């Protein structure tokens, strides 16, 4: 699920990549607690990273007080890891894991309730093109992909019968799945929500210029005065190339592509599929959605990818501040609404 991300002013420090697998010898003595690089304007760039949602989460903060910024980065990472631990379907002891195993979860975490309430609202608004109860279909596809085959139509029908957001009951006292065998997944929204919490944690510590990459992106301020945070969009057919770049104007950005978790070699079947039919969209390869919150941006990528473009744009219009870029299977921009695609930065080497 790694999305290639690239920030503007793009010249990758090739020496790190060229170093290959050999790691430098550890230095003697204590290293600085803070990973801070001084900037020309006297402030410092503080960076931190962790692993969550099966991908790398990284945070950058620009501030005049490196130790304070490092503490903020630490808190933001901790918030992301907490969301992962709460909402991952891969750990049976997570709240989502317990709900899926037992069919009911008493006293759910308020964060989980908030995300699921959002999920139900989006399912309603998108007519089921987004559905948090898609997990049985997803599990079937993933199992078949591991076995190197596509699911039979009977298997799909059986799994589809267990999908249905109207049978998900969400409340502050309990969350319940009304039918046996139902299961939820928040893989489509947890990263966006984690981005929101990380941005909030950094802002609460007084950081004004920040970038959060938890799979989805959240940003505030600028990298340096006059140089906004910019995210490169990976070319869906060439991981070394970019489709272009998007400026993070304070909105969060989420990107979904058919290349991230393909179920078939020709990318016709992949992890983004219609919860109502089990089929992947035939025409689109990548969508990028910007929205005031990471949760909304992340959630919207799925219906925007799956619905016919006209309906996708109509859905976007229901959310003030939301915008999107839609790319077809040959990586051409077919629609843009409220979001501008910039040419990829010159010297466009890609991150390795």
């Amino acid at each position, binding site marked *: 699920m790694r999305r290639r991300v690239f920030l503007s002013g793009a010249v990758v420090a090739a020496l790190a990549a060229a170093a290959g697998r050999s790691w430098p010898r550890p230095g003697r003595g204590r290293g600085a*607690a803070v990973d801070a690089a001084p900037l020309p304007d006297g402030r410092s760039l503080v960076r931190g990273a962790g692993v969550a949602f099966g991908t790398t989460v990284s945070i950058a903060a620009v501030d005049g007080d490196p130790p304070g910024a490092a503490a903020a980065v630490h808190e933001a990472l901790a918030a992301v890891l907490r969301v992962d631990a709460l909402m991952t379907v891969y750990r049976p002891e997570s709240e989502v894991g317990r709900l899926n195993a037992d069919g009911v979860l008493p006293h759910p975490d308020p964060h989980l309730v908030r995300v699921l309430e959002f999920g139900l609202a989006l399912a309603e608004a998108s007519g089921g093109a987004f559905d948090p109860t898609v997990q049985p279909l997803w599990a079937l596809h993933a199992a078949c992909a591991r076995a190197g085959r596509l699911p039979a139509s009977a298997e799909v029908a059986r799994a589809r019968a267990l999908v249905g957001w109207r049978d998900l009951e969400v409340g502050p006292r309990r969350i319940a799945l009304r039918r046996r065998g139902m299961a939820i997944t928040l893989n489509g929204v947890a990263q966006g929500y984690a981005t929101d919490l990380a941005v909030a944690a950094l802002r609460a510590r007084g950081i004004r210029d920040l970038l959060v990459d938890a799979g989805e992106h959240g940003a505030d301020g600028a990298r340096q005065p006059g140089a906004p945070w910019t995210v490169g969009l990976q070319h869906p057919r060439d991981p070394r190339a970019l489709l272009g770049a998007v400026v993070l104007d304070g909105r969060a950005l989420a990107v979904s592509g058919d290349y991230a978790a393909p179920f078939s070699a020709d990318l016709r079947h992949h992890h983004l599929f219609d919860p109502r039919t089990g089929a992947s969209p035939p025409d689109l390869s990548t969508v990028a959605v910007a929205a005031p919150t990471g949760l909304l941006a992340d959630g919207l990528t799925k219906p925007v990818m799956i619905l016919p473009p006209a309906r996708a744009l109509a859905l976007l219009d229901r959310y003030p501040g939301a915008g999107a870029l839609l790319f077809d299977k040959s990586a051409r921009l077919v629609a843009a609404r409220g979001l501008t695609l910039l040419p990829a930065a010159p010297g466009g080497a890609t991150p390795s």
Partner: protein
Amino acid sequence: MSRALRLLAAALAVAAAPAARAGSLSQQDLAAFFPPPLLVGERDGQLPAWPIFRKSGPPAFTTDLVGYAFESIDLAPVPGFSGTPLDLLVAIDANGSFVDVRVLSQHEPVFVGGVGEEPLRRFVAQYRGLSLRQSVKIRTSVGGQGAAASGSSAVYLDGVAKATASLKIVNQSVLAAALKVARAKLGFAAGRDPDLVAQVRADLLEPRDWAGLVDAGLLRAFTLRNRDVERSFAGSEVAGGDAEARARPDAPFLEVWAGLASVPTLGRNLLDDRGWQTLGARTWKGDQVLLLAWRGRWAIWDDDAVRGSVPDRLTLTQGGLSIELRDLDLDSALRPIGQPRLDGWRAFRVIAQSGLDPGAPFDLAVRVTRTRGVVYPERIGRDFPLTVKVPDGYLVPAADDQKGWASIWRARAGDVVVLCVALAALAVLLARRAPAVAHLRWLGRFRPAFLLFTLAFVGFHAQGQLSIVNVVALAQSAVAGRSWAFFLYDPMSTVLWVFTLGTLLVWGRGTFCGWLCPFGALQELAGRAARVLRLRPVRVPERLDRVLKRAKLLALALILGAALGSPAAGDRALELEPFKTAITLGFDRPWPHVAWAAGLVVLGVFVEKAFCRYLCPLGAFLSLAGRVRRFDWIPRRAECGAPCQLCASRCVYQAIGREGRVDYDECFQCMDCVAVHRADTLCPPLVLLRRGRARAAAEAGRAASPAGGR
């Protein structure tokens, strides 16, 4: 807290200390090992491993995961020869290759004095660039096996003279820790928690012969034909080099039977008593023992191979990851249970930390080599895969780890209910001093009946004999911060321990030692039976009795010390306890064990509960722990001790002093003195009082009668 309790706590803490150590590096410390452009990431709390990233920029940023760094002690605290685990900083990349291994702390005698730490540092530096998918072995004799390494999936590290044993521990720590991280973090084995592997059911033992073991799927049979081997060498320089194979292509080249001997139904049926005991002594909870038997034209274990070493001709993998096998060096025979004529067999140990899941299939590869040339022979090898899987019925499944113990409780609900009812009844009777336990006439019937229940139901049927082993294991887990959940897998012991600890507060050690210990009950019942034959216990001279009663503290110290020293020593020391021989195995053991246990029972006929009073380490522990007792519950009178000596002389455990004081540390709660105390026909002060009252009444009657005529 009394001095004795403090001593006890200290002793347990020492015994458990090796497991208590934990990694010491902070994120900041690690940053010193991994300076920019590397970035030490945030630990996620699931596994004590730090993600390491490579970053670039500014102005352009990338953050790529390059691997994980971790301390071996956090993941695989394998005790070294000093009893303390080594701590190594290990870094692996995202493909499961070693990036670096460094020594953080070590107490191996050979590297502390003698040759110093430098050879160890050079040794661990060899891991750089090796892969976890390879089988990493230590070259023991210089130049000995160099040829065998060519073309093999095994890689050899250069050893250090006189330090091979310590290096094996280093290798085990590195591999086991790295495997855990690889399984949990690198997507191997589907990200399963390496602690969540299936467990072998220790309580299931079916008598089966060889054919029965094969039928049950516990022994998997494989046949390699000459033709298969020849075909695998086709096209190489040694193709067609086997005349026998050309002559008889369909004849078997090698027949192999493989299975897990740590599954009791396989190990207990196939190994003789000594072999099974050695297996028990040389493995820890969670270790597996792989047994291979073979016949044919190739041997899986070369007779020249070093005993206890890693096999050359056999490798084990599961989920694509290599797992270390080590010869268990079992020096005993297989029972004749109808097996075909075999050319050899060998047992190999797989340590628990390596994460082998007996519930999933695992792959063995038998390596067959041919040599070419005479002067400097080149060896060309081919691997032949065999897959082994333990049938589900012999396992406690892993996915249900949390439910695992619950299902055991459900399965034993009947026994648990019977035990709880019996314990509740006993507690109520003792607390209310009901006639059954406080009137001599009833006590004389109730007590033997209850002891019979303890022996037959708690001991033999429900296998609920508590042991000092439980104490050591619980203390180790507590100090190491590990869960006590493993204890829940044994409902009988759990219930009995909870009850025993509760009664320590009220009555002291006597409730367990006197009423609930099956071996104690066996001794007492034997004593009662012998009394029919007019055999009577003797009283031990008072001073000797006092000295001997302290001896059991030595036994406790010995066992804790041995458990701290080495597993083998610990295992031997634990044989002091005859519980396993007498109760768990019902005297079905080799004669020295049976002689010891039976001898103690016979001794108990002549010296009442001699083992319990003088030798029992569990008794010593409970008598120390019993100092938490809140009540002096045995009633006393001013006359007790001076002048009355009745209870002191009646107490068969010699737990009442001449001065009349009860020594609760040695009291078995037989209730005799309690019953005597309230019997006005026996307790001298009461007898005197009664006689005095009678006399007074008689006198009063006489005095009253003349004046009373109406």
